[in-house]
């Protein structure tokens, strides 16, 4: 079942007197529990696509159906509610609130939604366990390592059981080892929680954890790789690197 459907997405920006086409007719569908990586050189439209899919921005043309809602037709308020309940975000710079503890940061989307955090204690415990932060739940972000902060950010994205989690360069600010741990966590979450994940990345090693990798160039989908479930990581990585080199050639 598709949780997200994008059809013929177009996005144009005015840059001075010029019209820049950031996306030029992209169509994409994401199934429940699917982990999709999006790759492409700088300026290829990766982040723009992610923002449109998450309802952060409106397309110039095309349609996006997210959890049954036509995102492009929604008002700012309605789009906010759809995001709040159906989309989880993981950012490159973690974006945690420094004045809140790890636990409070994770509960943030529920607090914003006016829900009582106590009602979600089981879910919180389960997620804290999954991201390995049970012992660190009362620490503030400045008392956590970069990897721990990103795990808090992932837990925050998962707490509302969103239809889809959007990750923007989630390993961009982490060292290799922590980045690897993060990717394992993302993949397991997709599998165990039956959670759709779309991740934008420059890093072929990160992309190799995805079920499917979509390559963009000049605002268009130029290539797509789907891995079989039993493909091992080194094979996936090689495949991604080769495809990337072919496209850059």
């Amino acid at each position, binding site marked *: 079942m598709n949780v997200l459907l994008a059809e013929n997405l177009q996005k144009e920006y005015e840059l001075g007197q010029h019209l820049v086409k950031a996306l030029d007719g992209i169509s994409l569908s994401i199934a429940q529990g699917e982990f999709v990586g999006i790759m492409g050189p700088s300026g290829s439209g990766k*982040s723009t696509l992610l923002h449109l899919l998450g309802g952060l*921005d409106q397309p110039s043309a095309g349609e996006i159906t997210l959890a049954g809602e036509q995102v492009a037709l929604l008002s700012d308020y309605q789009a906010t509610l759809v995001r709040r309940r159906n989309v989880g975000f993981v950012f490159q710079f973690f*974006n945690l*609130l420094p004045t809140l503890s790890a636990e409070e940061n994770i509960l943030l989307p529920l607090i*914003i939604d006016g829900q009582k955090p106590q009602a979600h204690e089981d879910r919180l415990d389960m997620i804290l366990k999954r991201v390995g932060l049970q012992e660190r739940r009362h620490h503030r972000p400045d008392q956590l390592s970069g990897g721990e902060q990103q795990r808090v950010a992932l837990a925050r994205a998962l707490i509302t059981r969103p239809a889809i989690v959007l990750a923007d360069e989630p390993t961009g600010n982490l060292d290799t080892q922590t980045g690897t741990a993060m990717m394992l966590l993302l993949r397991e979450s997709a599998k165990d929680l039956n959670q759709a994940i779309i991740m934008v990345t420059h890093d072929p090693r990160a992309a190799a954890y995805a079920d499917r990798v979509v390559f963009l160039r000049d605002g268009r989908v130029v290539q797509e790789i789907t891995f079989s479930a039993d493909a091992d990581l080194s094979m996936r990585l090689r495949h991604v690197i080769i495809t990337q080199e072919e496209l850059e050639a």
Partner: protein
Amino acid sequence: MLLTRYITFRSLATRKLRTFLTLFAIALGVAGIFSIHSTNQSAYISITRLFEGTSGRVSLEVRSAAKVGGIPQELLEVVQAKEGIDWAVPILILPATLPGETPVELDLTFFGAGAGGLILHGIHPEDDPKVRDYEITQGRFLSPGASSREVVLVEDYAREQDIAVGQDVTILTGSGLVDLKVAGFIARDGAGLTNMGKFGVLELALAQELADREGELDHIDIVAGVEGGPASLEELRESLIASLGEAYTVVYPASQGDRMAQMLSGYQIGLNFMAGIALFVGAFLIYNAFSMTVVERTRELGLLRSVGMTHRQVTAEVMIEGVLLGALGAVAGAGGGALMFRGLVELMSQITGQELEVGGLPLGIMAGSMGVGMTVTLLAAALPARQAGRISPLEALRLRGRSDDRWLLRYGWIAGTALLAASAGILIWNPFPYDVQFRLGSLTVFSLFFGAMLVIPVTLQAWQSLWRWPFRLVFGGVGDIGTRNLERAPKRTMLTCAALLVGVSMIVVTQGMTGSFTADLYPWIDAYIGGDVILGSSVPLNRDLKEKLESLAEVDTAAPVRYIQVSWQGEREVEEISFMAVEPDSYTAVTRFVFSDPEVQGEKAVAELSRGRALFISSVISEKYGLNPGDDMRLVTREGEKEFRIAAVVLDFFNQGLGVTGNWADLEELFDIHDVNTFLIKGAEGVEIQEVMTRIAEDYQEEYQLVIESNQAIKQRAGELMNQAFGMFDILGIIAVMVAALGVVNTLSMSVVERTREIGMLRSIGMTRFQVVLMILAEAALLGIIGGLLGLGFGVVLTRIFLAAMGAMSGYVLPFILPVRAFWLSLFVALLTSQLAALLPALRAARTPMLSAIHHE
């Protein structure tokens, strides 16, 4: 360097609102200092000039020791014969008025009512100009000899009354109407400044005839011929006292000015306090604005650092902004100050009942104030400038400015607690002498303020926890997120709360002082302006008028009142106090006495006053000199020093509370005074006040030049006058709150700018724009609550210190009464201010575009 200057100027132009606010703060401070000091100087110059002008070259004056009544003219020859005297000239004061000049209302100054009118001096025309300056502007001066029946008037006054030189003018004196020929005009300068220019001179003998005081003088003015300065003058004074005898006294003319200067000094203290507040809030706003500029320009300054600018050069860049704003603000402040100066002079003139001269702009004070403005600006800008200089290029390029407040959290509370403990210690346990106590009390104001301010950062979490539930109720879950933000910039939070604290405490002080004052003052005013109607006149009123008035069907009782100045031999020195003479029977029929001890048996006390040689003293005299019923006071009368028994202590704030009430019979017998200042009238039962006034006006207004006013109208004006005096402090409170509001705007704007990315994240994970607004409003509300509650506490302590200081200085002890209204008003103002001030930054935050915010570094 030109390019970087250009960047600095452009940065000012881009941030128009902040540039304007900073300029406003600097201008406010400069204008405050300039106007207040100019007003003080103007008051001082006016008073000095007035007394120098009216006293001329007079170095000593001979007067009656009893303060009232005249001295025999023969004394003039005795004085003139004395060695060491160049000139001795006689003066007889003749109160008069022009028919038709009668004002519609009594001349009401701070707690004193009179009817204005013209003052004529009877002089020797040949001698007086040698002592005082008379500048003839038209016609000629008086010709010697009483037969001339001439008068010389101040030109401004004469022109107002349409009087020309050469014409005959009808003047009303205590003994009736008289026609005098106007010989000439004098300028309103020198002697012409007397009685605010409502002044004229005539030949002494003629004045004596018109006043019905043949052979009498009011004083003899002496120009001493002694050399050797004050010591020789004092010798001459003592020798004069010795040869003239006890019935007369010799005084320095300057001592008359002391009283007015003393009266002004209290107000000047208040004004100086205002200047201090203006300076503090100004400095805070400037600091805040510069901090914010540095936060916003960090990236730009970091770029300049990375391309080779040194720490010092970056610091200098910010300081140049300070110099520019300081200079512009100082100029604007000087302009605004000049306008405020005129307003203050006008206000002070009204309050003191003394016209103050504005004159030219005091350039020295103007330059000084501008200098102070520049200095404060540069000092306030120095810290953010240093902070800007310390940011490394890398840090600057990656992050927005971040101030290091750890020291404040770590050590601030220690200093704060110590200051609070010391202040509490001083306030509760103070074994020092009175004047040291007073000084310590003033210091306590500052130590309390800084103490409270320094403990704010460390108590932020406690405040936040304490208000968590109410905030959740009002603002929802986002309220929590908002209030937690205050912990991020403790220094900024501390300063903003401090600004709110100042504003709120000013409101509490104003309310508290007004409450305490009015609790005492209104019952007194109510009794003091007693009866239904008050009659006054600019010429002495004959007591016979009482019977005439009481014969009218519309009048029940007419109670005469006469005020005189008397000397009283206090413990340390001779004091001058006012003596209000009343007929106890008629006075109590019309109004009542307000006894400070409610237990006192009023009738018994009034009966004692009626028996004579008894006094009611004011609570101020009682407190100041420790006098109580049963004690005696020795007053100097025309019959020498006489003992008066104190019958009761009453509330009486006439003459700043330095007054006693005595019996009419004593006034006539011991002071030889028979005329009346005012009549308090009680209308006959069932008669409308207006009818009483109309009837008196028809029958007696013209004959006695009466000013007739209903006591309700006077009370209303007295109330207005009081409100005007307190209004000054209200304005101060409003300004302080306004500046605090600007501080909140700045602080929250800075907070929003710093958190752009974070707000973008919150929006992306589902926070609506409205929730963003609520979050910022919650942040502001906690600022308001902290500032409001601390301000309330600080205001209460401040009011108590002010009341205690006033009691110590003047003996005027007021009960501490804080109206419940003050409590709610201060919290309401703090909350409302913080919420209104937060709206702009909150809307700005709500408009934060998510995408740029997420990518914002």
